[in-house]
């Protein structure tokens, strides 16, 4: 191999490696699935596991929220699909909702998931036409989760027990 060919190859390899390093530092992936999913999303080739998603949706509608989240995680292991992240956040909301008090731990994780959904959605807006849901946008869901985490005078309002889960 000629010297210029070696240098060109080395330069190209260095640029590619440096780009991967910058991407890794910027995205902070937590698993190999997130690495491969993130890279394929960068070139627009990312697809969720539709079978696992449908299974998650079925479990979600049956009220089996933890099992639904497991299926949704399997469907979108790279956390790159806005719609799946929205359903994960919604499952945290429904599981954490309580007539007397909400589960702050689940609501916090719900906020994390809905923030991911908003970040991934085109123009930051996500609308889901699912008749089973009472909140159809990620913004509504985020506001509801944030309200559940907030401590204010409405927490001691006795009429709050009459509110309905959305």
């Amino acid at each position, binding site marked *: 191999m000629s010297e*210029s060919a070696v240098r060109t190859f*080395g330069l190209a390899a260095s640029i590619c490696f440096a780009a991967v390093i910058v991407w890794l530092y910027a995205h*902070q992936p937590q698993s190999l699935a997130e690495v491969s999913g993130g890279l394929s999303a960068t070139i627009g080739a990312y697809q969720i596991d539709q079978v696992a998603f449908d299974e998650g949706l079925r479990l979600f509608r049956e009220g089996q929220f933890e099992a639904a989240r497991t299926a949704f995680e399997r469907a979108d292991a790279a956390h790159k699909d806005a719609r799946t992240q929205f359903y994960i956040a919604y499952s945290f909301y429904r599981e954490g909702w309580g007539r007397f008090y909400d589960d702050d731990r689940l609501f916090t994780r719900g906020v994390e998931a809905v923030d991911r959904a908003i970040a991934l959605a085109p123009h930051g807006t996500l609308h889901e036409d699912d008749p089973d849901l009472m909140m159809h946008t990620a913004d509504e869901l985020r506001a509801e989760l944030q309200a559940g985490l907030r401590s204010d005078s409405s927490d001691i309002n006795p009429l709050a027990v009459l509110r309905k889960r959305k």
Partner: protein
Amino acid sequence: MTAVREAVYLPLIFLTVTLLGGIRLGSRVALVPASLFSLVLGLMLLGVLVKAGALAPERLMNARRSGLANTSGFTVLATVFLASAQAFNLVTPESGLPHLLVCVFLLTLLLNTLAAGADRVRTLRSLLVVFGSAFILKFIVLAALSEQTGGRLKRVLLVLLEGVTLGTLTQEVLHPANGYLAFFTLALFLVGLGMLPGADRSERKELIVVRGQG
């Protein structure tokens, strides 16, 4: 120096160090970019290497070389700098009094090495000692102190020590794999430094003579 070493091996070694030096394993995997102070230390290390003749920038970039050769030479310089910053970032404790002390310790050692004006071999030996001692301090001594397990005596001593240092001594408990990863990263970094194109001995002797006459 061969073109393969300059264009392929050296950039890939130093980019690997840049990547691995930022990895912190724990319940979550985090990639920590180099701090501003690490960047300063990295730049100082470049100065030390050049002054000692362990790195000859003129052999990597000069007017007689082609544009492509100069670009690959620049890549080596840039990656050495990034890897140096990340190597310092790796051996510096994350917080508290140890962080401050190690920063001062590394700065002093680098200034001392710079002032001593040692040759290539002695400078590389000195760097081995600097990184080796910082590694032992962070990944063995401080990690052992920060470990929650241990006998009653150790806990009593730790409480006393924490009182003296206003609670700034112990660090976040490190995952054991961090130490192994850091060891490999530092070893790779030092191998990379050893492979850098050094100043020609005859040229260097001439330079010293000229400086002596001046």
